[in-house]
């Protein structure tokens, strides 16, 4: 700022050069403190200057001063310019967050050192020991250092960096000055001081899991705001609650940002489980650009938190027990339970979904849980029934491509309870971290497929049981049923092998691998990813991914089987009556003499039954054709897929269903036909 001194400036003309020098030095010292003098006047800064020029000040030296002295003065004056520039930046970044404030206060300290230096020079000057040369000699190192600092700061200010970006920038500058030790050191000490508040926030986060970040500078962001005391319910808690702000990571933490985020997240979860987080050792987190000390501290904190949370999950909340329990129910691991449950609920589930009473199902479920061997499971009460409003295929397509909205309008007409049924597994925090609703819905998808197949199998078995009665029939009558029985047997074979494939070849081994891996697991994210991998693998190998339309094929196969069962059951009643009657007739025949009239009537009866059987035979044939066609194309699809991708195990299924090359010819025929067409 410009203050008018009243005292006129001494005239320089005609003064001996020593006196001139003295005056000039005094003036220079003042000037270096940013005070306006008489001989050395700052030029008006160029308003058009942009970039770095804006923070530069040029001076003019009075023309009456001896030329050589003026030259010397101009050598020194950039220091004043830098000093003024730094001061300007400091005052401009007054309220720019913690990092800037810390940097500013470090700069002020630097300024104080600078003042001390100037005061020393002044003392020297007062003792008349100083010449311009000497002064330049004294100041040279400072000039160089100040220039670098000024340059870095200006750049920072022009880019309007705040918070972490400042630190990043300073680190970059330090790197750049690798050769220039003094300046580098000055910058390093500045950086150290500037990073103190940031590191303090970081330490609080990785040690206690809390964020105190008034200026929104920290790299982790709490998206929840005030709701931290309530228990989070939603599954996306883990994903969404805290997030990393990419633009707020200082470069030296870039690599560890993920670790940092997770450390605090773990700590928060532990805290929400009602446990006190007590770090074992004192943590001293400081950033020193010259070494990597902070990395060790961060790593220690991370391992500590990860270990602790894993302990909480695995030992205190028995995650594995819960997973076992989920597998038991949702992956049909517990045979007797599921059988009993199906026995109990079959009637209810066979209704249209609108008529199914969820309460009844829930009651039956509770009953089954307590009656079957599941009653020893401590987590059995977490299991609940759920009726979804769409069937499996719809669910799949909904998940895979959200565009297919029309599905929603179309369905919801003729779904039986069975198609909509699924178990739900409710878990409490913090187990819900792993068994979140995404995971549960994946389990549900597998469950629904298995459940449906199981249902079909049961229906087929039921016919088989009822069909056993035909053994009593005469061989001639039994002939009629042969085609139907072979078809039934083939269906049974297909369905059972499908089930076997899914449960024994896919789920079991994968589960085993998963369990093995879980024994060695180190942190919760690992647990999550392992679990997800397990589920995805199961889904994929159970043909529940939309890329192949296999699940639709399975669904159709099941539909045909059910249709067949229904048909057989319907005709059964009629035929059984007929056969029994004829058997009664036969026995009558044997007792009485073979009279023509009776024979005739008998034949008539046979005729009529044959007549029926004709249509019966035809229909069985139709079912047969349809089924075989579907199965063949299904197998074909698998074959094709397996050709492209040998890692999947689909092929096992083909070998299983087609174990004695029963269908091979037909498949080949289809291939040929396709090739021809």
């Amino acid at each position, binding site marked *: 700022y410009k203050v008018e*001194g*009243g*005292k006129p400036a001494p005239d320089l003309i005609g003064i001996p050069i020593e006196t001139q020098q003295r005056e000039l030095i005094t003036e220079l010292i*003042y000037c270096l403190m940013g005070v306006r*003098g008489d001989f050395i006047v700052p030029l008006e800064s160029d308003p058009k200057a942009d970039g770095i020029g804006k923070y530069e000040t040029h001076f003019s030296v009075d023309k009456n001063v001896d030329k050589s002295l003026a030259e010397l003065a101009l050598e020194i004056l950039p220091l004043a310019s830098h000093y003024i520039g730094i001061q300007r930046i400091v005052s401009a970044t007054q309220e720019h967050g913690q990092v800037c*404030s810390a940097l500013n206060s470090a700069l002020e300290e630097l300024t104080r050192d600078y003042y001390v230096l100037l005061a020393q020079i*002044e003392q020297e000057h007062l003792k008349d020991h100083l010449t311009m040369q000497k002064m330049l000699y004294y100041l040279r190192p400072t000039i160089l250092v100040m220039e670098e600092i000024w340059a870095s700061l200006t750049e920072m200010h022009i880019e309007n960096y705040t918070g972490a970006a400042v630190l990043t920038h300073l680190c970059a500058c330090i790197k750049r000055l690798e050769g220039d030790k003094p300046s580098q050191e000055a910058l390093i000490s500045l950086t150290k001081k500037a990073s103190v508040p940031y590191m303090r926030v970081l330490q609080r986060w990785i040690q206690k899991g809390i964020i105190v970040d008034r200026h929104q500078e920290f790299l982790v962001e709490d998206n929840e705001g005030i709701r931290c005391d309530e228990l989070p319910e939603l599954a996306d808690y883990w994903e969404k609650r805290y997030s990393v702000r990419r633009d707020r990571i200082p470069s030296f933490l870039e690599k560890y940002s993920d670790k940092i985020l997770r450390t605090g997240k773990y700590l928060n979860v532990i805290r929400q489980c009602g446990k006190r987080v007590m770090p074992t050792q004192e943590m001293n987190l400081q950033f020193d650009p010259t070494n990597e000390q902070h990395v060790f501290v961060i790593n220690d904190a991370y391992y500590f938190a990860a270990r602790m949370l894993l302990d909480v999950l695995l030992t205190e909340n028995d995650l594995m027990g819960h997973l076992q329990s989920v597998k038991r129910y949702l992956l049909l691991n517990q045979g007797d339970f599921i059988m009993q449950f199906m026995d109990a609920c079959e009637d209810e589930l066979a209704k249209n979904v609108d008529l199914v009473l969820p309460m009844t199902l829930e009651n039956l479920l509770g009953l089954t849980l307590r009656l079957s061997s599941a009653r020893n499971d401590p987590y059995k009460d977490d299991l609940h029934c759920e009726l979804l409003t769409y069937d499996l295929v719809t669910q799949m397509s909904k998940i895979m491509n959200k565009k297919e909205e029309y599905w929603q309008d179309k369905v919801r007409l003729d779904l039986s309870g069975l198609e909509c049924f699924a178990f739900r597994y409710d878990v409490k925090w913090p187990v819900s971290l792993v068994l979140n609703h995404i995971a549960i819905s994946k389990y549900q998808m597998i469950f629904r497929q298995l459940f449906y197949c199981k249902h079909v199998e049961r229906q087929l078995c039921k016919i088989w049981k009822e069909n056993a009665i035909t053994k009593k029939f005469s061989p001639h009558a039994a002939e009629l049923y042969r085609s139907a029985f072979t078809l039934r047997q083939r269906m049974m074979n297909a369905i059972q092998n499908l089930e076997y494939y899914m449960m024994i070849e896919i789920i079991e081994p994968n589960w085993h691998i998963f369990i093995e891996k879980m024994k060695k697991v180190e942190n919760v994210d690992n647990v999550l990813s392992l679990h997800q991998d397990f589920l995805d693998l199961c889904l994929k190998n159970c043909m529940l991914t939309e890329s192949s339309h296999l699940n639709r094929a399975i669904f159709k196969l099941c539909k045909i089987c059910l249709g067949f069962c229904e048909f057989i059951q319907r005709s059964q009643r009629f035929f059984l009556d007929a056969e029994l009657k004829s058997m009664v007739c036969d026995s009558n025949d044997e007792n009485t003499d073979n009279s023509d009239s009776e024979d005739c009537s008998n034949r008539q009866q046979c005729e009529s039954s044959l007549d029926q059987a004709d249509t019966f035979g035809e229909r069985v044939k139709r079912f047969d054709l349809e089924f075989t066609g579907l199965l063949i194309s299904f197998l074909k699809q698998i074959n094709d897929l397996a050709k492209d991708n040998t890692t999947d195990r689909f092929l096992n299924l083909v070998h299983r269903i087609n174990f004695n090359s029963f269908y091979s010819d037909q498949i080949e025929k289809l291939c040929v036909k396709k090739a021809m067409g």
Partner: protein
Amino acid sequence: MEVLKKQKDFEAEHDLAQNAVFAFIGIQGRYLKKDVISGRFKLNPLHQKALTASQSSMLLRLAELGYYYDRVVQFANTATGYNAMGCMGQSLISKLNDELTLFHGKVARLQDEMNQFRAVQMRDYISRDKTWLNRRRDDITLVRLMGWYGVHLKRMQWLSKIADACQMRKGGELASVVYDFLGHGGDEVDVVAVEVLAAICKPLVRMISNWMLEGNIDDTYGEFFVESLPEVGADRLWHDKFRLRHNMLPKFFSLDIADKILKTGKSINFLREICEMQELVKGREKLKEIMENNAADIFSYAQDTRWHAAMETCYQQTSKHVLDMMVGPHKLLDHLHGMRRYLLLGQGDFVGILIENMKEELEKKGSEIYSHDLSAMLDAALRCTNAQYDDPEVLNHLDIVVKTPYPGDCGWDVISLQYTVQGPLATMLEPTMSTYKILFKPLWRMKHMEFLLSMKIWKEQMGNAKALRSMKGEIAKASYGLHLFTSEIMHFVHQMQYYVLFEVIECNWVDLQKQMQKATALDDILDAHEKFLRTITVGCFIKTMTDMERNLEMVYGNIISLENWQSHFYEECFKELHAREVHAKRIADSERAGRFGVTAEQQMDRDQGYKNFQQKVNSACRNLETIASSYEKAVRGFLLALNSSNDPNLQLFGTRLDFNEYYKKRDTSLSVPLT
């Protein structure tokens, strides 16, 4: 000459420095004068001429410190009215004064240095040692002052900034304001803010420890965040006497902590005043020491400092103490159990006997009942049932009361059981008593219905069936309808009773007991208890938003009218039966007398009577049908409300009431799908 000029220069410069040093502590000098309006220093125009431009701007810069010094002085002086208030404000002021004193010391040392130099110089001057001009060392120049003043300027700036923000504030609000200065980032600023806040919090910490350990509120200026309401008496001490003063709650206290603090002090007060206990917290001295000596801990970001730990210990100990007190000597749990058994009809045999004893009284008009008769019956009931083995202390609290009857009320409506609590228990349970009163009513009403059904309707039916066998032909239709209807109602009432007594009350009671076992503080128990009451209030269909309560009342109304109808019906029947018997006897008499036959008049009379009776039976049938249909309507409404509620328990109850879908088939609105 040159020496003289030099000396003069030197003198001038010295004068300048002296001026600046004076300005540091707000004193005007030769060159610097204060601006009257802004309070800042400006150059004295009289002497401005003597300064070079650089000197004057330097002076002005240095004088900035003086301005902030003045500001701080202003805030530190209570007379100006710019200062903060209350105890905590006082500690802020004394902190500011401390700072000023320190600063004075620094300036004094500076001055000393200057004087020393001056003295040396004077000596030299006197000894005419001309060399001194060349030996100028250690002089205080403006440039040196520049180096000196930076630190102090910043400190003064921030002190004045903080003090400025604190104007006219007190207590927790003050602390919150200062708290906002934390985390600025700059090193010195953080230090200043923490120091100031620590100073401010000292009285607060003392108040807290005093409150938590002694239960006293020592708060002349209304700064503490707990306040005691003097007009609330000791009987409401636990629930209403103390409360949080939210605007005085410093920002760095979460509500949770504040609540704990409130409860601790409250417990201590409770123990002292209601239970008349002394010697409350073990290791009090130590806790007190920790709590008072770590003032800076209370505003730490992470709440795990020693202060917090001590606070936590104190809270836990005290609440444990209160809990032990209530559960132990005062038998809180026993009393709760007692209330559950007697007021919520948990003790079946007792209630049965009581009703049996009071049968006549209950039937009477409300205005004819006197409570002293009843208490004798209550005692009798207590003595002859299992209740006699109960703790006499619990039994003593049980009482029977008669409300002032409204016209038309009978005994059932006015008689109720009551549980009177005294002493500490009353303090605890006072607010829940009204809930018990409300709860008792529907339960009692249900008992009433059960009594009507079993003791009146069913018993009469069974008893009269035999007597009226001779008239079976005439009344078969009516009695058949009656039986059907009765069993329908019985089903309803039994299910209802089962639901309320078992599913609602018993299940929740078990939950409550679990929670009581787990409780670590008295408030846990009270909260659990309150929750229990709330749940069963909903479960007993009281004050629900839907019209269940209304429908239920209609059902009950129908039961009562059925009872009336039935007694009326049987009365008619017996009248008729009697008339017949009389008639038959008359015939038999005449037979014995050998006259054979009755007069035509008598026969006509009888025929007329018979006709009348038939009419009456018919109209009774019709009446029964109306009752039945209105009953059914009520039940349907009730079921509909049940089915459309979101609570699965209620839905289940609805399913059970309508287990064979009898109502569902008769009412289409009930068969709307639930999914």
